[in-house]
């Protein structure tokens, strides 16, 4: 029982962290150009910063 008191908040906290990161990624425009992201990996020497 005492183990649960530690583990459950951790599990929930990790879930919330993931959710918060998803929201951040969406606001930051990470999902704006999914096809482009797939293509960019093929560009040889991307020397300029991203």
């Amino acid at each position, binding site marked *: 029982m005492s183990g649960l008191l530690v583990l459950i908040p951790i599990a929930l906290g990790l879930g919330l962290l*993931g959710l918060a990161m998803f929201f951040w990624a*969406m606001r930051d425009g990470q999902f*704006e*150009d999914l096809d*482009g992201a797939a293509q960019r990996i093929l560009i040889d020497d991307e020397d300029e910063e991203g």
Partner: protein
Amino acid sequence: MTAPFRQQDLEDSALVDTRLTVPGMRCAGCIAKIERGLAEIEGIDAARVNFSAKRVAVRHSQGLDQGDLVEALRHLGFEAQALAENPLGSDDKESRALLRALAVAGFGMMNIMLLSVSVWSGAGGVTRDLFHWLSAIIALPVVAYSGRPFFASAWMALRYGRTNMDVPISIGVLLATGLSVYETFAGDGHAYFDSAVMLLFFLLAGRALDATMRTKTRAGIGALLSKMGKSARVLGPDGGTSEVKAEDLQPGTIMLVASGDALAADGVIEKGRGSLDNSMLTGESDPASVEAGSVVHAGAIALSGPMEVRVTAASSDTVIAEIARLMDEAGQSRSRYTRIADRASRLYAPAVHSLALLAFLGWMLAGAGWYQSLVIAIAVLIITCPCAMGLAVPAAQVVTSGALIKRGLLVKDGSALERLAEVDIAIFDKTGTLTLGEPQADLSLLGEKQRQVALALAQTSRHPLSRSLADALKSEGTRPAQVEDIAEGEGQGLAGVSQGVPVSLGRPEEETTGMASLLRIGPEETIITFADGLRADAKEALARLSQQGIASRILSGDRQGAVETVAKALDVPATAEAKPQDKLALLEELRSEGRKVLMVGDGINDGPALAAAHASIAPGSASDVSQQAADAVFTGKALMPVALAISHARRCMAIVRQNFGLAVVYNICAVPLALAGVVTPLIAAIAMSGSSLIVVGNSLRLAKVKK
């Protein structure tokens, strides 16, 4: 530390952002070429490509204007247009809101499931109560946040005395949550939080897929729009020129029209002579010669100039605007089309409600007590709640539209796919649809030297014929000759000197029937003719359509002779010299015979017919009006996407029907259990996710693109 930052801010404020659409980018190489090529140009700070939307955002100094950027991209080998603002931003917002709701529901579902599984596997006593309380704490905010799209839609329907799929969903979710909260307080029995949240998650997945598909294809279509003359160069009273937006033009203003410009308003030519391409407006493929006194219409493209045009009618009074009005009226009938999901829910929603009510009453009569009867009624609601149904249609349609995008066809929404699957006759416009709509140079008469000189001259000009000639020569691998002192005289063509010999490229002296250019090298003269050729695969595409039981015919505004040539080559019946009204009348006639018409056309004159037809497709080179009226837009030089659209749409609808079948079978199995009162939350959860996954899996079969 702070000083350099301020400096940076100051510099940034002097830069402006311009967004351009570049429909031609296809690969990683294009991204690299555009971003690096632009960044090397003086005055451009940075360029960032959005490949999905086919756009480039350029940050540059105010010294450069849109024209410079378009020209810079043209040098890199890409056609580009500047974008004003995003006209489709609202769609984007909707799909973002759905994605957020989906993420929250997913978070809730996973955590509640974690707790529920422990309860199912035997946690009891205090632990079970604790888990139920935790589930309640997670579920209540999640339901409140993620359920909003359904609650809002259900509330709207109820307010107008109707019912839709969202009503049983909302009732089921709210009742299940409410009952579970009661049970948590009472400290005994089952909690249905997991079912409620899982239901939301799967349904939101369907909605989010649907919205993503619309945003994606609309971004693609948005990238093709805005090719037409939206502004005009206007001669001021002081002799200076300024750029004026089409809607701000006043009758009496003098517009300057150079070759390549699209006319922004109707008018009369005051000065100058030239030829106009009216194909967008009337379907006529041959250019019309105009001179002082000729009446010209908005939407026509000047092939040669310059001309001064006095505006007689602007924005809402132009011929284009008249066609737009006709189109609005013609589009009414299509908005009455109900999508298959709505048709299904019209049958389904009342059935679900009455079944749940009957279950409640039945168990009450059987003496089960109101609490147990309510639990069973909720179980029936949750089990029958159309998880699989909510996914059945969007999952199949998203996969299909994804496969079609790869083949160069953008379908605007799911309803378009449903209507495309139903068509049984296809009507094609000629110019720009069956043909490429742009003049193709006949290079067969040119020798090697002539090709090199022609390319050297043509590539310096923006005249449509020169551009087409240059493109054709470049694609044949011709390298330009050394030509010095190239000058472009307005209306006189290009002249220069190559190895001491005067060379020129210009309009032939005597009038020819079609479009032609005269190439002179010293005393030697060659005529280069241009013709608007058929799309290479037009014949195969039509054959493919007839294999699918769809007859084709041509309906064009062009001259009888030109239409007959094409009709004979493709072996289909044709009607020529049809006005927009005539096109509408023919569609009306076919509809009254019970035919479902597919209209394929590009011109402004096709707009009303595109809007009136059961389904419609426009090429990517079409006018804005046509692309907006059409259900789907195909890009590239092939016509085959039109035939593919039909076969894919039909396959998609077959899968949708299978999905519905699966959902019905699932209900037939699960509902008796629910009615019998033996459905525990565990069974409900497994049945629900299982049926949803089967439906999604079945839809994924569509991703395998058949050749």
